[in-house]
């Protein structure tokens, strides 16, 4: 069997298949309710209603006011805006920011830019499971700290950072410090209450939850002040100008509502699948699961190193069987800067080079997992014979 007609998609941390109801709604907003939400006539009004509905749907998932939701072009914009917008608003009070060593480039690179612009950034180290410690954070906060930015779930290994403790600590000891959470891999997998977690800014992307690409939002808590980054016609209360992407926002809203509908059930299913996958993989010789693999990590991301094979080669071999995964190593990737958690948790070069990331969704089945494991079992001996030394 070299070619499979079936498709097994285990790269849901990269992007997800768009839900069909979502796609239908997007199409409707493009071909029927196509007005500009700012127009005074009925067409504009209809479009505005779509936005309102979407905002309400999202707000319901976070148990927040709809006025806290600002639509963006996606996770990268949300993260950029949170960081630059906070830095710009608070720079007179201080120029110190805190983040972690394992953030996504859409956090890391804005931070580095700010370092060049006269800000100081502390990068919290992580342990072997990719987790920051509250103690390190406590020690890092200073008089002039204005922002703490921590990812909820790590995109490479699925580690879930202690955002609850961090939020509680900051709220108790440093209420003036803004707390930003990159929840791009967490939204739809965790019940997130920004008010209870004391999160001021929260980034979410639409296409990770079966919504359209090019959509996302930033949650801004009612008492937080950040500066806009995009100026123009004053849409979204002047915080994010530009004609609203009504189809995208509507799709995002519906995707959000749907992903939270049966979240407990679905997350439990994903944990069970992940457990099955990791258990079976662990039996393969020289296969090592990276990071924690219990319910303290995300339900949908599993990172596994296969020693003696280059992840890119294994990836393409799996692809020939219709199985899609992601490679998790710097050397194999076309964008080395995007992969750095594996190094930060102390993996050797060989282990990094052989790392595959499996990421599940609500659509993943037991058969998908079993077929993937047996394909890897079949492929590995052959591929390991031809490992470049």
């Amino acid at each position: 069997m070299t070619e499979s007609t079936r498709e097994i998609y285990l790269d849901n941390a990269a992007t997800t298949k768009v839900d069909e109801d979502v796609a239908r709604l997007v199409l409707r907003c493009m071909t029927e309710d196509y007005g500009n939400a700012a127009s005074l006539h009925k067409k504009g009004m209809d479009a505005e209603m779509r936005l309102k509905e979407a905002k309400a749907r999202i707000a319901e998932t976070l148990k927040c006011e709809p006025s806290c939701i600002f639509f963006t072009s996606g996770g990268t914009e949300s993260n950029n805006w949170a960081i630059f917008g906070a830095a710009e608003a608070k720079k007179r009070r201080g120029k110190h920011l805190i983040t972690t060593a394992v953030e996504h480039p859409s956090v890391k690179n804005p931070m580095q830019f700010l370092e060049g612009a006269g800000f100081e950034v502390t990068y919290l180290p992580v342990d072997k499971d990719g987790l920051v410690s509250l103690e390190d954070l406590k020690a890092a906060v200073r008089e002039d700290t204005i922002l703490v930015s921590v990812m909820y779930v790590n995109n490479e290994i699925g580690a879930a950072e202690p955002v609850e403790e961090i939020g509680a600590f900051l709220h108790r000891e440093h209420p003036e410090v803004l707390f930003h959470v990159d929840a791009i891999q967490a939204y739809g997998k965790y019940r997130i209450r920004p008010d209870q977690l004391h999160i001021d800014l929260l980034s979410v992307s639409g296409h990770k939850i079966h919504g359209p690409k090019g959509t996302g939002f930033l949650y801004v808590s009612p008492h937080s002040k950040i500066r806009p980054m995009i100026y123009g016609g004053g849409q979204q209360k002047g915080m994010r100008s530009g004609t609203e992407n009504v189809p995208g926002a509507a799709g995002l809203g519906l995707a959000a509502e749907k992903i939270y509908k049966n979240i407990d059930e679905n997350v439990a299913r994903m944990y069970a699948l992940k457990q099955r996958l990791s258990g079976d993989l662990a039996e393969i010789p020289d296969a090592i699961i990276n990071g924690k693999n219990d319910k303290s990590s995300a339900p949908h991301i599993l990172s596994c190193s296969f020693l003696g094979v280059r992840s890119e080669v294994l990836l393409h071999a799996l692809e020939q069987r219709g199985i899609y995964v992601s490679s998790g190593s710097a050397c194999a990737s076309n964008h080395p800067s995007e992969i750095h958690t594996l190094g930060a948790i102390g993996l050797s070069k060989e282990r990094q080079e052989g790392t595959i990331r499996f990421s599940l969704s609500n659509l993943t089945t037991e058969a998908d997992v079993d077929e993937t494991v047996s394909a890897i079992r079949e492929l590995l001996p052959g591929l390991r014979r031809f490992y470049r030394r």
Partner: protein
Amino acid sequence: MKTHSYLIKYGEIGLKGDNRFLFEDALMKQMRIALKKTGGKFSVTKTNGRIYVEALSETDEEDVYRALRRVFGISWICPVRRVEDHGYEALKEEVLRYFGETHPDRHVTFKVEAKRIRKTFPVGSQEMNADLGEALLRAYPELTVDVHDPEVLLHVEVRNDAIDIYSGMVKGPGGMPLGSAGKAMLLLSGGIDSPIAGYRVSRRGVYIDAVYFHAPPYTTDRAKEKVVDLAKLLSRYTGPIHLHVINFTDIQLAIYEKCPHDELTVIMRRYMMRIAEILARQNGCQALITGESIGQVASQTMHALYCTDAVAGMPVFRPLIGDDKQEIVDLAKEIGTFETSILPYEDCCTIFVAKHPVTKPEIADIEASETLLSGVIDALVEQAVAGDEVILCCDKKL
């Protein structure tokens, strides 16, 4: 409406003897193909040993240059004003008008280069140079004469059928027209060099086919797609390219398993040559082309080249053999393949390399190592050739 005409200068073809018309006809054919891409109508004619292009429809001049600058054989493209002979005074007026229209900035140095080819014209070349020069100075006092290094060289050529007036010219690619030589098989990788090697040989009038060695899952489909893109870019100059994609994985694995690792690259290159030659013969090619340049990498030392060359039963053209990398890069940027070539997808050559490949392979050692493959390799080669996937690469856009 002024007719939009161009005089085409072709360097080397002019030196040909009795068969010169063959080259001219080939050139005109390629020009017509290229001009078709502009979407306009043109007549391409040959009169008295010169090729003229005349636009028969509204066409952007830049489009014409863009098209013709990719036609091998053209050394210069000169926008020309062709006028009928209504006597010398009428010509003088036309020259003044031409200069006024084509050179809005007259703070330039100039020189008139008149040529009386039709000897029945009453005024001689020298006389015209002096008189037209004077008339221009009178009409446009800002002008200065410079007979040695003028900024504007104004040509006035009295020919048998008409008079040509032209000044500026746009450089063509030079070389010989496609179809005036044979066809060759290019070993095309995703790198910077091999497309340029193909370009250089094709510029001598040679049609190109190409072969790419694909090694899934060790090389990605993106790497293959990149090679297709390169072939398409190259085809703007060389005409349509049949790209042969050969699955090389099993051969590579066999070599990897059976042969000494420091000889991997040389042996692999030898099998690539062998397969390329089989394809070349099947497709009517008379030579192979590679992008090798002496000493660039371990497989391109003199010793290594000797070993790879030894398996070829037909000429192997290596047009870059004496070039420095920078020269190759410059040409790649000029013809537009560079940006695609540097996309970071590994090809099979970069994946299956030993840490320390042998730099001075001895042919006897290599041949001895290859005997380790006997019994399997012939079938694998046959299988690879039989699985040849042919992709027609051409670019119909301007």
